């Protein structure tokens, strides 16, 4: 079993950290992981993305060609990565920011108003956790608990209060895709 995912958005939206949490959670669950960021000047104010592989086996190529899932936080990333999703794969869109159309019929598209949900929770910065929660609900790549455990390790002392809001954000994201799946059914 190998999960391959790309997280993409503006630099500063926490896309690199989101990918790192996923990789870290995989490591905590005893899996093989690889995380590769885009790097260089494009990250400063421009778009940033990272790819994550979580696998039960030794990882050969650490590069993600056709991601099983893509988490999209801005319009340029939608244009860049929608076409790369593996047929049958998942495209998760923060619909609070990204409104562009997706023409592909062979992938599952979920629009989650992640920024709106985050704002309702009282912290705009947890939008990435909303989308990550949705991704975990759909794939079960790792458990939400492992992600929160990873987050606890990277949060500096004094910021552990942020854990609870992140947990809520992940739950809201999961709920959003459950509802949307229910609506389709």
């Amino acid at each position, binding site marked *: 079993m190998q999960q391959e995912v790309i997280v993409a958005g503006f630099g500063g939206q926490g896309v690199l950290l989101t990918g*790192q949490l996923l990789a870290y959670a995989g*490591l905590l669950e005893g899996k093989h992981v*690889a995380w*590769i960021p885009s790097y*260089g000047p494009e990250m400063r104010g421009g778009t940033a993305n990272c790819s994550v592989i979580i696998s039960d086996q030794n990882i*050969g*190529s*650490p*590069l993600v060609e056709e991601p099983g899932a893509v988490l999209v936080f801005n319009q340029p990333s939608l244009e860049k990565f929608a076409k790369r999703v593996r047929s049958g794969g998942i495209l998760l869109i923060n619909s609070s920011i990204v409104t562009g159309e997706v023409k592909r019929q062979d992938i599952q598209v979920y629009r989650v108003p992640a920024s709106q949900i985050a704002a309702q929770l009282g912290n705009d910065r947890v939008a990435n956790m909303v989308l990550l929660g949705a991704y975990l609900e759909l794939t079960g790549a790792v458990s939400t608990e492992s992600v929160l455990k990873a987050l606890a390790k990277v949060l500096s002392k004094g910021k552990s209060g942020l854990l609870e809001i992140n947990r809520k954000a992940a739950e809201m994201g999961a709920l959003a895709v459950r509802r949307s799946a229910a609506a389709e059914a």
Partner: protein
Amino acid sequence: MKVLMKGNEAIGEAAIRAGCRCFFGYPITPQTELPEYLAKRLPEAGGVFLQAESEIAAINMVYGAAGAGARVMTSSSSPGISLKLEGISYLAASELPCVIVNIMRGGPGLGGIQPSQSDYFQATKGGGHGDYRMIVLAPASVQELADLTAEAFELADKYRNPVMLLGDGILGQMMEAVSFRPRTALPAQDKTWATTGCRGRARNVINSLYLDPEKLERHNRHLQEKFRQMAENEVRSETYRTEDAEIVVVAFGTAARIARTAVDSARMQGIRAGLVRPVTLWPFPDQAIKSVLASCRALLTVEMNAGQMVEDVRLAVAGARPVHFYGRTGGMVPSATEILREIQNIAGVAYGASVS
């Protein structure tokens, strides 16, 4: 215990654990996390971190520190390594141990900042002036970056020669799980040749100038004998599914990781493919390549350059089998799909021939 670390940072941590207490460097993408990591960690470990005014100054500081007996390292990326080459020639000529890290990016010229392997020639064929060699280690994972960093210091001291750790932008930037294995005690550091002040002994001189050609030839013979021993004792490589392989891919570093996935895909399609991964690029693992020729019909060298290591593969194969090449340049990375297509073409699948 395994931790998740960037390749660049893993090199830094492994260096400190290997007893390196001295780093001189200059910022350049995509290796900058390494000096940044050491800027924080080395002073904690009681060591010296100094950001030099240039790559040229940095390698010459390495020369001074190595000559003073320190375990010392510098790092850079391709254009910066070009600047260090004069110093590397001096280090090899003066028999000074040190570790030089090159996290390669696309060239030539200022090139780009994306991953590349286009410094293979520079690393393995000298680069700087004069007849010198250095061991070139080519890791393919963050774990191996850590392991080979530690080994690089030991090899440098063993032979009193610079050792290069050759990675690329992906390896430097990538995060993977890494554990820092406890290493057996370092061999006693008996650097009696170091210039530390001559109290209680005859004075030491670190030098590479020999105006008398007979003396310089004698010095060269001595160096060549040392390089011969390195070539004899320090070859490292890894083979993967080569036992019955008809198509053998040869690749190093990141390209080898991608090639491994392509080899697995080819096997699933019934093509008997295998992989030879040189871990030392110099000395080059000729024997490992010769040893797979019995079952092998053709070889495919895959590199993130326009075709450099392929020359050494062809030398090893010596015309016994066709050696094909597939590469991407400029910071583009070959995909497993592209490599699989090349394997298929060579296997004749594309033309309907049977391979099994």
